[in-house]
């Protein structure tokens, strides 16, 4: 397989013009931590973004950082740390900013920090046929034309190569505590109601982990509120969140999304309808509706999981291992096709990787 490793956005544009002329199919690759997400697709070459790793502008007082999309998340973390701020994606340090955005992965802290799409305010993208297009603005608010960056977020590299982004960042909370208690979904639900303003309530089969952030007096009070519901067994200051992600040991991980109130139904209804080995380990973000579910294979179990997710109004794409996204048809399929035809007219960007065969 060919490898294209451009130095800057002009080289990306040139590479894509060439690819379009030659009908050469490409997979965009950043940190390669999440390339399993997507339908299987055949490509002729990989385009690596990792040399586009420059800092373009960062003014802490503006709470905006502008970076090239191949910058590693770990590097951005370090830069923002010095400004007392963070971009709360929580992806592995070697993941790239562009990859996080293109995969629209969920941060375990989404309850408080929101989805990644809300942090992207300006973007430069190279389309499939090699045009450099910018949208948005480097201001915290802007209603100025169509937000192409929304379209690119979660597009899995099928509409264009994200080359640069302006990110809305947030002050790093003065106090950050991770807390663990015994229990499962039910205890988690009670904590979600009882603890004021938690940053995350992550329920697993036997434990619940909470992330509490804010002023020191505030997190103090949140820990007390937690303890009243279930005795706190571990508290760490500054520590990682979550303590561990047991589902990551599984061969296949689905990242299910269902309406938050349906999580319990999604995870606890007896899984006797599953043909294969039962559900492995899982972690559910209460109040958000995301559940990471570990499976031993993508055979029968995955289909059963997807059927259940669909019945509850959700989806269950795989983010690790085989299994793809699932066969849910995206609403407005014609609109999707026209968008793909406009932005990638020769169909060189990972054809077939996206939902709906796009």
């Amino acid at each position, binding site marked *: 397989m060919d490898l294209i490793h451009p130095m800057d956005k002009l080289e990306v544009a040139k590479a894509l013009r060439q690819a379009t002329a030659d009908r050469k199919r490409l997979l965009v690759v950043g940190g390669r931590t999440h390339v399993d997400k997507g339908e299987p697709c055949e490509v002729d070459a990989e385009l690596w973004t990792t040399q586009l790793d420059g800092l373009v502008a960062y*003014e*802490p*007082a*503006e*709470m905006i950082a502008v970076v090239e999309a191949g910058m590693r998340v770990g590097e951005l973390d370090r830069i923002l740390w010095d400004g*007392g*701020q963070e971009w709360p994606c929580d992806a592995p340090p070697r993941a790239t900013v562009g990859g996080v955005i293109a995969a*629209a992965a*969920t941060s375990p802290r989404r309850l408080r920090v*929101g989805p990644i799409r809300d942090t992207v305010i300006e973007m430069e993208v190279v*389309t499939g*046929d090699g*045009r450099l*297009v910018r*949208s948005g*603005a*480097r*201001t*915290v*608010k*802007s*209603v*100025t*034309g*169509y*937000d192409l960056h*929304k*379209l690119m977020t*979660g*597009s899995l590299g099928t*509409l264009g190569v994200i080359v640069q982004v302006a990110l809305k960042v*947030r002050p790093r909370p*003065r106090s950050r505590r991770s807390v663990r208690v015994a229990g499962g979904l039910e205890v988690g639900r009670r904590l979600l109601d009882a603890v004021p303003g938690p940053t995350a309530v992550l329920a697993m089969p036997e434990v619940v982990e909470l992330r509490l952030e*804010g*002023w020191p*007096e*505030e997190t103090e*009070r*949140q820990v007390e509120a937690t303890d009243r519901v279930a005795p706190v067994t571990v508290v760490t200051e500054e520590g990682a969140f979550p303590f561990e992600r047991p589902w990551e040991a599984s061969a296949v991980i689905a*990242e299910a*999304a*269902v*309406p*938050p*109130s349906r999580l319990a139904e999604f995870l606890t209804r007896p899984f006797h309808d599953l043909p294969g080995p039962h559900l492995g380990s899982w972690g559910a973000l209460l109040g*958000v*509706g995301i559940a990471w579910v570990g499976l031993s294979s993508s055979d029968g179990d995955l289909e059963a999981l997807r059927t259940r997710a669909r019945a*509850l*109004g*959700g*989806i269950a794409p795989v983010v690790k291992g085989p299994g793809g996204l699932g066969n849910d*048809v*995206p*609403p407005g399929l014609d*609109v*999707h096709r026209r*968008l793909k*035809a*406009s*932005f990638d007219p020769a169909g060189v960007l990972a054809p077939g990787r996206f939902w709906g065969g796009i």
Partner: protein
Amino acid sequence: MADVDAARRELEEALGTTEVLSDPLALTLYARDAAMVEGGCALVAFPHTVEDVVACMQVAARHALPVVPRGSGTGLAGGATPIGDALVVVTSKMDRILEVRPEDRLAWVEPGVLNLDLANAVAPLGFTYAPDPSSQQTCSIGGNVNTNAGGPHCLAYGVTSSHVLAVDVVLPDGTVERFGSEAPEAPGYDLRGILIGSEGTLGIVVGACVRLTPEPPAVRTMLLDFSAVKDCAATVSSIIAGGVVPAAVEMMDHGIIVAAESFAHAGYPTDAAAVLLVEVDGLPEAVEAQSRAVENAARDHGVRTIRVAADDAERALLWKGRKSAFGAVAQIAPHYHLHDCVVPRSKLVDVLAGVYEIAGRHDIIVTNVFHAGDGNLHPLLSFDRRIPGTLERVLSASEQIVRLCVNNGGSLSGEHGIGLEKRDFMPLMFSEVDLGAQACVRAAFDPEGRMNPHKVLPAGARCGDFAMARGTDAAQAAQSIPEGSWI
């Protein structure tokens, strides 16, 4: 030429005769929104149901009528101002709150529901709908969605797009789709995200699933008063730079303070050069800590007095002054023209000075009341357009203000949108290629270019080079505004 009579008959059949208007008074009434420009239309329809809206789209498609969606008509960019033989589809009779579901922190509403009605309906359950435009008593959720509306409390809570989980949309070909989901992720591209802020150019929103925000346990509202505008503006960036993001930071200058005070009697200091209305919320401990930080920043910049609202009544009064400010400036002169640029917060001091300078040079009264925490300026030009030459001066000053903001790294609009009034400024911010790509997004939803033509994109923006198969020429033709159709 569209057969308007035939279209009217078909609409009357589908919606009932009372729900279709074409008399001159109605056509004049719906020829504009709250912006300066005035247009014209052929028909006005008032759907009650999704099926009614589908019928409107189908009739318009059959007769090649442009379609202009309209909520409450409070828009300030001319987004709902029709041009030519348009069918205006007013969604204000679709005004039911369909479902409030606290366990999912969401509500389903029809597009005509008024922003404040939604907030009031969920308040007894301990929730609020966070985006709170100053026009919230009258503007609709459908309009909010399509302008990606903001409000004072969007500083900490985010603008409309952060609070809309899904939208039900009737596309120009009459099909109905749901973009987004009650679940946190949905299959496909984020068409929900593209639709929000699209100013009625992609389809008609017939339902929205909005996120509800729990009321904060504690709130504190403060009025900080300054003897110099620059100290007031500098306090804003200094609060944020200190790592504190209050729920709201609103600024009012002297002219606004005086006008608002004589209207609301909120006890604003009428001798101040500028005031900041700051609100912090959260747990009581956080409110305490944030207040301290705000007060320290203000003292560093020579604040004269700090008034803290003692109770809910005083808090409401302080906000009443702010929220009625636009109405209150009617005392200054009969007409106003409002801008909505956003600049980096660190540029507030310089840009404000520039705005006063430009207004002075054009001999126009300018007042400022705006979302300072977001850097979202609202320079308000007051004038009497019956005086010859005034309008020209206003338009010239406007253009200079917009250029000043963009040259300082700003954006054309923070929340009101581009509509008709700002579309010709778009090339200040975007290249031809950028605008071409935007035109492609529009064409993907509306290949025939009938949805709210003339809005958002300037006349030259083409998707053509992006290999769109059809419709682009028609779309282009529709983009040039007929001569003489507006002031």
